[in-house]
């Protein structure tokens, strides 16, 4: 009976650590897919096997283990390498045009179509 208890405890510990490791690796994959490999051409950190990308992946794992949130990891890397490292740059003075231009084009195009429809 005692043995059974121990066995259950061991199994719980085993699966719990496995589950945690799995969660970590999913989060590492998610974060690294959103990061640009700065020394590669057109690859994310997730896709690349370069030394830089591998170091970043290792660092992400370390930061997760230290209890950092996803946003804190992005902020850390942006602080080191600038907005270029993230595929989804935040809206600021330098990137506002990037975000607004498609909207302006969309509105302008929409207005043209509406105008055309009404004229016809």
């Amino acid at each position: 009976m005692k043995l059974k208890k121990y066995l259950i405890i061991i199994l719980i510990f085993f699966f719990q650590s496995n589950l945690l490791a799995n969660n970590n690796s999913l989060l590492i994959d998610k974060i690294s897919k959103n990061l640009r490999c700065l020394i590669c051409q057109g690859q994310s950190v997730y896709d690349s096997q370069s030394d830089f990308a591998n170091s970043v992946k290792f660092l992400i794992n370390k930061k997760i283990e230290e209890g950092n949130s996803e946003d804190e990891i992005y902020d850390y890397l942006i602080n080191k390498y600038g907005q270029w490292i993230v595929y989804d740059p935040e809206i600021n003075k330098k990137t506002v045009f990037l975000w607004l231009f498609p909207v302006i084009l969309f509105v302008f195009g929409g207005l043209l179509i509406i105008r055309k429809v009404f004229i016809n």
Partner: protein
Amino acid sequence: MKKKIYYFVLLLITVFVFLLLYKAIFQNNSYVPSSKINKKINEFSARSLFLDNEINIKDLISQKKITIINIWASWCAPCRNEHEYLMKLKEHPNIILIGLNYKDKPSKAKLFVKDFGNPFSTILKDPKGIISIDIGAYGVPETYILDNDLNLKKKFIGELTFKNFEEIIEIANR
């Protein structure tokens, strides 16, 4: 009149987009990082290559004018090319040169400095490349010039050239 305005706006947008794209053609498409000049790099600790003891970067900064951190590896070919400049920089009285050995085997790193000479006052190990990322590096070789408060004065990405070497000497002589 309305049609004229319409064509004028359309032309204006076309010219604007054309100029924007035209300008982009001549821009360097490889990433040029903001060098974060005059910003403090994070203080870090690492194990030394020869004694394997933990050393804080602050403890290595002497009262010499500038501290240079060179990120290198024995497997990195450009590191061999720039080595002669590092050997010369070692002789400069205002410079303290620290090596950060990037993702290398200690035995190979030791062999490298034995064969080519050791320009560094201390060599720290960065086996996982994490310290290099913490100071904002991309790979090897990279050279950082710092003042005594760990403020970044200049950053050279890639192999040091003669021009870079002269620039470092000029900074050290200032």
